[in-house]
């Protein structure tokens, strides 16, 4: 079961990565990247790294992708969308699929209510990672702050208008 899920998610990740580099349209590429980042998050989840999966979705698939799409919209002007939508018939699918999603959500919420809360922190939890960062991996953690400072100074230097 786990193997099948892994193969499926890995295939999705690979195909979306290929789509990202093969698609000429930048917006399509960005959407493929979203799918890719999402499937990587699913892989993290399968490995028991809940925090990483959540961070992946929130930071990469969320924040960074929004910036990407903004940049693409601002920098690469696309053709005006005119005329009737060529995929009009697909809209009929929207209602049943939406209903299915709503049903799924309701089932998940109902199941959640009955389950007891997690008693102990699993290995991939925020607490476990925080603990590691501040004990065993304190030095890499601090070194990262220097790295970020250097990156910030570099950006200032390159982006400043007067030479």
């Amino acid at each position, binding site marked *: 079961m786990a193997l099948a899920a892994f193969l499926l998610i890995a295939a999705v990740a690979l195909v979306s990565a290929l789509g990202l580099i093969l698609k000429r349209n930048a917006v399509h590429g960005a959407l493929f990247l979203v799918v890719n980042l999402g499937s990587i998050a699913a892989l993290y989840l399968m490995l028991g790294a809940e925090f990483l999966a959540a961070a992946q979705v929130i930071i990469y698939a969320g924040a960074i992708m929004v910036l990407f799409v903004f940049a693409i919209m601002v920098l690469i002007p696309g053709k005006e969308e005119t005329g009737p939508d060529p995929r009009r018939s697909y809209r009929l699918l929207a209602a049943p699929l939406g209903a299915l999603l709503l049903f799924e959500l309701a089932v998940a919420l109902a199941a959640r209510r009955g389950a007891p809360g997690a008693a102990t922190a699993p290995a991939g939890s925020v607490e476990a990672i925080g603990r590691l960062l*501040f*004990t065993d991996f304190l030095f890499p953690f601090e070194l990262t702050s*220097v790295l970020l400072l250097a990156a910030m100074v*570099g950006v200032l230097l390159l982006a400043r208008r007067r030479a």
Partner: protein
Amino acid sequence: MSPIPAPPVVLGPLLPSLIVVGTAIVVLLLDLLPPRASKAHLGTVALAGLVGALLATLRTWGSGGRAFHDMIVLDDYALFFHIVICYAAALIVLLSMDYLRRAGAESGEGYGLILFSTAGMMVLASANDLIVVFLAIELMSLSLYVLAGLFKRRREAGEASMKYFLLGVFASAFLLYGIALVYGATGTTNFDRIVVAVGAGPRDRLFLIGLGMLMVGFGFKISSVPFHMWAPDVYQGAPTSVTALIATGSKAAVFAALIRLLVAGLRTIQPDSTALLWALAALTMTVGNVVAIAQSNLKRMLAYSSIAHVGYMLVGLVAGGAPGAGAVLFYLLAYTFTTVGTFGVIALCERAGQEAVEVRDYAGLGRRHPLLALTLGLFLLSLIGIPPLAGFVGKFYLFGSAVRAGYVWLAVIAVLNSAVAAYYYLRVIVYMYMQEPEAASASLAPSFAGGLALAIALIGIVLLGVMPAPFADLAQAAVAPLIR
């Protein structure tokens, strides 16, 4: 939630790197204070920080230590590299002071980034954990990517910075993937525990693939063939003083990590890695030297020449053991002085307000600036490996270690390559002394700091060439405890 026990924090083994990082922050803060018009004092502060780090390093010699769960090891080996890197960085700051002002690109951020990059190199030299290796390489490279594009108005600068950045990130991805696979195969990122894990179990294919990926990442950073494509464009487009830093400090630091992991740590898989390194060394030397012949731009020529020198140093890695590693350390010291000096002369020469980078710009330099021409001539002779200069002794130790370890053919290839290399170095000398100067040939842009840097580098190569024994002993003493 139980309280987190505070981990033991021992800052002693980090002192030299901490001094450099601290100086970088001080330089950035001073940049905001008056006098805003002149930035000369910032260079002096940066230089003082590097000298301070050098003194701290020399004081710590023989009494290093470990810190942060063995992630940082400050042994004599790391200290030797600290000395090489600090010397290189100090000379480069000296060179930059007038050079960047002439180009109108002097800034506190520039000095700060040179220092950040230096700190990254120093941490890399004492790193004993793959995660620290990765972060240190990133700190070093990220600063260099920006510095390569310091002359924003020139088109080549943008090309250099962009190419270096994109290919560098690509190489970092390989490095990271390699680290992940090695972690998957051994369950740790710590060098010591990786060695134990590899020694215990049977040959693991996952581990070998991971190690191969690591080699790709390292190979890019030291610009060994076939990962050298970025070097000529970056060397040409970057400010000359930054080029010197890329060519010396960054390579020395990556070699430090490479030797610590490969030659000292993973001797059990030596049969596999040696065949790979043999091919890399032969390819790197030959391609570097042969392509260098065709270059008319001096900085491009030196880029290919530095690729060739990486090939020579890989010969020492093939020879392996304490003699081979010690020879590489000595060679790095000699190479650093010589290369910083060569780029230093280029930084001091200008032609019609531009940098003098074409070989023919140097026609007749021997008549108009005899001292400068003599200096450049000596550096070039050292790069060829003419006695009694540092380059000769370095090559002697390197090729000697290869012959003693039984790699006679590799030594033969290396010697043949040195002969080929003599051609393009001598061509510059011929231009300087035997060609009539053109109307607008290179002239000297006087600079006290630059002159001082050249003098130090010149004393360095003569000293290393005339009495190499103490320095060679130092290099051997640095690697001996590592390789036992």
